[in-house]
């Protein structure tokens, strides 16, 4: 077949395959959305239904009424918010120090921070719990938050960005007599603003999703975050899938909305983790 025919044909086939792939890939998420609007009997009916017959909002009402959902939601917002703020405070500071200063112990710190990326959280779960328990922080907000106040990848990300800030800017300010703190806040931080947004997104997603630690450190219902609340809900109400899905939609919504609003930054951030920009 001549190329002039096969070209558009393969393009059309390619588009069809991509479209089919898109449908397949989003099916679980759309299924969750659909099931969250079904009644229990609709979901359990012998005749399979892909879509609800009517948009039934009752599950969303019931999820808030039946259990501590509001509490889980506000815990998640608070804990995630504070973790993001702490990371925004510390990561650029440490990253700046590692990028532009020289002092004894610096290389050891850098090496150690890099090495912790390789240490799976599970491997230090037990002793971390023992430390937090020793501090009396089990089932407290500080117990949920402090172990995530800094992250190795956040510091490393900041270091990589700050290394590319020209030394001249910093030295010029120094000659003009600006204090080190002023240089940091008025020169370095504004220059790395895009990186800070990336950092905030990555930390937000990771802490909104954090499961194992929150599971271990919360002993009662009062401090549970959304993921733990949902998991406990699943244990209590094995068959109320429509409620689980309504709760899931609410838990998934903030990150999905943020992603749709800031997709480029999001994708760059994920790629940025690998050191590529």
């Amino acid at each position, binding site marked *: 077949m001549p190329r002039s025919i096969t070209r558009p044909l393969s393009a059309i086939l390619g588009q069809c395959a991509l479209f089919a792939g898109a449908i397949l890939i989003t099916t679980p998420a759309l299924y969750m959305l659909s099931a969250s609007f079904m009644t229990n009997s609709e979901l359990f009916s012998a005749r399979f239904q892909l879509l609800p017959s009517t948009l039934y909002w009752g599950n969303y009402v019931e999820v808030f009424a039946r259990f501590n959902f509001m509490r889980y939601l506000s815990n998640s917002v608070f804990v995630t918010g504070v973790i993001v703020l702490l990371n925004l405070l*510390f990561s650029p500071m440490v990253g700046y120090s590692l990028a532009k200063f020289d*002092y004894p112990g610096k290389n050891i710190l850098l090496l150690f921070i890099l090495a912790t990326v390789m240490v799976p959280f599970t491997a*230090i779960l*037990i002793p971390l719990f023992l430390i937090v328990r020793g501090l009396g922080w089990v089932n407290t907000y500080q117990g949920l938050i402090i172990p995530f106040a800094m992250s190795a990848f956040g510091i490393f990300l900041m270091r990589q960005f700050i290394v590319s800030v020209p030394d001249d800017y910093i030295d010029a300010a120094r000659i003009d007599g600006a204090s080190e703190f002023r240089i940091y806040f008025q020169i370095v931080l504004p220059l790395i603003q895009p990186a800070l947004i990336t950092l905030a997104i990555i930390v937000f997603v990771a802490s909104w999703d954090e499961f194992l630690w929150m599971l*271990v450190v919360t002993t009662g219902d009062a401090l549970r975050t959304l*993921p733990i609340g949902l*998991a406990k809900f699943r244990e209590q109400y094995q068959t109320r899938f429509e409620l689980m899905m309504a709760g899931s939609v609410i838990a998934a919504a903030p990150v999905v909305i943020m992603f749709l609003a800031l997709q480029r930054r999001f994708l760059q951030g994920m*790629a940025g983790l690998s*050191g590529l920009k």
Partner: protein
Amino acid sequence: MIGTSQEQHLRNQSLHQRRRGILGNTLEAQKKRFGLIFALPAFFFFGAFYLYPLFQTFYVSLFSWGLLDAPRFLGMANYSRLFTDREFINSVWVSFVYAFGVVVPIWFIALGLALIFNRPFPGRQAYLTVYYIPAVISLTVWSLIWLLMYNPTFGLFSVAARAVGITGLRMLDDPSTAMPAMIILSIWKGTPVYMVIFIAGLRAIPTDYYEAAQIDGANAWQRLLYITLPLLRPVFLYVMVISIIEAFKVFTPMYILTNGGPGSATRVLSMFIFQNGFQYLKMGYASAASVIFLLILLALAIVQFRLLRFQQND
């Protein structure tokens, strides 16, 4: 008189020099001090929440400790028990099966998708957004969705399987299908992240290479084989290391869908550590398992870095 004034002069001079010396030093020292001040939180944090726990893991692993009783020193007994514990051996095996069952397909699918997305086509950005969606859904939520998907009577997955003639599928209740069930949902969720990393890697390859190859008459397949793939090696290594660590860390889907079962079919190492530590309160035993877990990942990382060096040399 003269002598004293000379002495005075010398003293002044040395004082002056010293002051200059001190001043010079203070500028440097000041910089050093600020560098340290800025890094201080990290020293404290990583010391308290990473370095100390790492030592503590090993220390606690030498004891028998149920949290409420006094720790009893055992020496290496926890380790010798681990190596004869069939549950533990099973967990190591299950972790390996899961990790490689997930990461190997992810590498190929993610790379394939990245190659597709590397070229411009209508609607590229929109498709990229849609393809990325599984990655931004919380893993807890994702696990709950698949709990529903796998439901034998009305779950979409089972219904779809029935539609193609596979009946009586009970993915999560059957020991032989529980692990594949975990692997499917993990590939589905994990692929987009690595796809984006590969896309960034592909974009970093200078286009002149391709232009030169085209002038030399290389076809698309040759360009892929001799330019793209070799230049993508560092990215591929990064993806390998990170994806394997991530896969070994897995916990949430098992906790929500199977709790390690049926039997021990999906009891990965994290699950083993969690259950021994926080359900059976065997702190020492769980710590010993953590140490082995760490050593396994360390060994895997060393193998991978060896691979990198080998690839760089050839």
